[in-house]
């Protein structure tokens, strides 16, 4: 049977020939937590755009349930794939409620407006992510951490099979990073498939699940986070000496660098 999402020999280069990434292959199964780990410039965001059907790969393919994502209409794809971006910029003063109901868009016709059931789903998502206090504030006035929670809530309203996260923690303080990762893990427990990009090797260790280690010239390794992440591979990926050490207090390995 076909994987939920299959990426094969994917490459993306600009018209003037500069490679963003190439030779990327991996498969994502339903309900998995899948981390795309790589240094800056490995093309993680572009790769995510290819998965979301927003960018057309130069070579290779991305198949959703066995069908090329390029063949889906925007609306059909939005029923399967949700996208939580790194930064949310909103030009107008939409309130959190008004913003969240936009997640229902794939189910709403071109000449129609949201129905009662869509607003009910918004209230559920508000309760899910404890956004009650923010619900009537303008999204544009929220902090980075609050916006990230609102974006996740909108993905829940959208209710796709797969939720993509582009560097969801990069703009957040440490506490908010941990909270967002906890939320992502809970999403997988509810049956969502979560694919996220990060340059922080501690995150796939914390989240578990699957990891693809990405370099600009191809995939370094793919597999279980526990077995795939090794000191040697991480050192190669980031071009600096890194060590995985077991920390008794928290009962897990952590990635640390050698002295400067």
């Amino acid at each position, binding site marked *: 049977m076909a994987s939920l999402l299959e990426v094969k020999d994917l490459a993306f280069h600009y018209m003037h020939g500069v490679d963003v990434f190439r030779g990327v292959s991996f498969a994502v199964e339903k309900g998995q937590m899948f981390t795309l780990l790589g240094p800056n410039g490995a093309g993680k965001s572009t790769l995510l755009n290819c998965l979301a059907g927003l960018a057309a790969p130069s070579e290779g393919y991305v198949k959703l349930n066995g069908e090329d994502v390029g063949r889906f209409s925007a609306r059909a794809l939005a029923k399967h794939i949700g996208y939580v*971006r790194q930064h949310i910029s909103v030009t107008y003063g939409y309130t959190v409620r008004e913003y969240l109901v936009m997640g229902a868009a794939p189910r709403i016709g071109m000449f129609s407006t949201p129905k009662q059931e869509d607003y009910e789903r918004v209230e559920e998502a508000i309760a899910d992510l404890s956004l009650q206090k923010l619900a009537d504030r303008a999204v544009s006035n929220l902090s980075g951490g609050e916006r990230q929670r609102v974006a996740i809530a909108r993905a829940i309203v959208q209710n796709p099979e797969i939720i993509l996260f582009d560097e969801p923690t990069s703009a957040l303080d440490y506490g908010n990073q941990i909270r967002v990762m906890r939320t992502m893990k809970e999403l997988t427990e509810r049956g969502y498939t979560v694919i996220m990009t990060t340059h922080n090797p501690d995150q796939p260790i914390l989240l578990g699940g699957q990891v693809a280690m990405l370099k600009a010239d191809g995939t370094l390794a793919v597999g279980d986070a526990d077995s795939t992440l090794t000191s040697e591979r991480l050192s190669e990926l980031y071009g600096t000496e890194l060590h995985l050490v077991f920390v008794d207090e928290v009962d897990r390995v952590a990635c640390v660098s050698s002295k400067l």
Partner: protein
Amino acid sequence: MIKDGKKRFSAEDETVEGKKQVLLSVILIGCAIVVVVLAVASLCIGRYSVDVQTTLAILASPLTHADASWTVNDYNVIMNIRLPRVLAAFLVGAALALSGASYQGVFQNPLVSPDILGVSYGACVGAALSILLYMNTWQTQIFAFIGGLITVFVTVSIPKLMHRHTNVMMVLSGIIVGGFMSSILGLMKYVADPDTQLAEITYWQLGSIAKVNFDTLLYTAPVMIVAAIVLVAMRWRLNLISLGEEEARSLGVDLKRERGVIIVAATVLTASAVSVAGTIGWVGLIIPHVTRRIVGSDNKRLIPTVILVAAAFMLLVDLFARNISGYEIPLGILTGLVGAPIFGYILVKQRDVD
């Protein structure tokens, strides 16, 4: 942390959107009452004034077939001079503000107005050309309409030719085409016969609905109403498109098609408004801003409200234009005098909030 929303979800939350809808209905009814009052006032007040009772009786006469208790002059002033003018004020105001709000949503830019695509200038060039060619009124309307549509086509084509489909490029393209069109208009005024044509072109350019009659409305109103219905039906899509290209696409918006339909409908409205009343500035820019302060940014509520607020504004401005002095002041001048300070105030307030 995710809690189980389904269990915590209470009946109380259900009414949040419901309450907003009730509030919107109250606002819309309030605006509609203001529009009706202003319309009746516009019919009664003027150099030849008619009392309210007679005005209403005249208005109802095609239905009631009541015996005429009014003079022929009363009837002519109300039905043939002021009524088309009131309808024109309503349609032109609503069209400009509705297209302004739509452009603002579609280009994610609150500083955009119908002028930005150059439609107003293009329509003006069309009208001026027809005046230079000694054409009659309805031909002038059609030329204005064609001029507006051609301008939009050029404005939309420039980013396509450059393979740069960004919103900023579209706005820049509008400025280029608008500037070019207003230069052509200047050239036309330069070659126009100063005794006859120049005055007519200048009058058109300043904006007025003094010469509107039922024939003019018969050509333009149906087109305007169809375009307005399309925009009202797609009002919630404006929210999605205003999030930006990538966000809209990942929410399943068929961006090319939906944005195209909205731009065409908004442009038809602007071109029609210009062909009825010349260039009346500021309405398309400030009315959406003022209305956002009343009902918020959600286009689902904004779009219907904008129509009535703009109609009320236009009726009020026209009432002033006719009665403030012995001479009639062109509408474009009054909307500029009122609009510019209001917009300045909004910008200052906006900065306070930021």
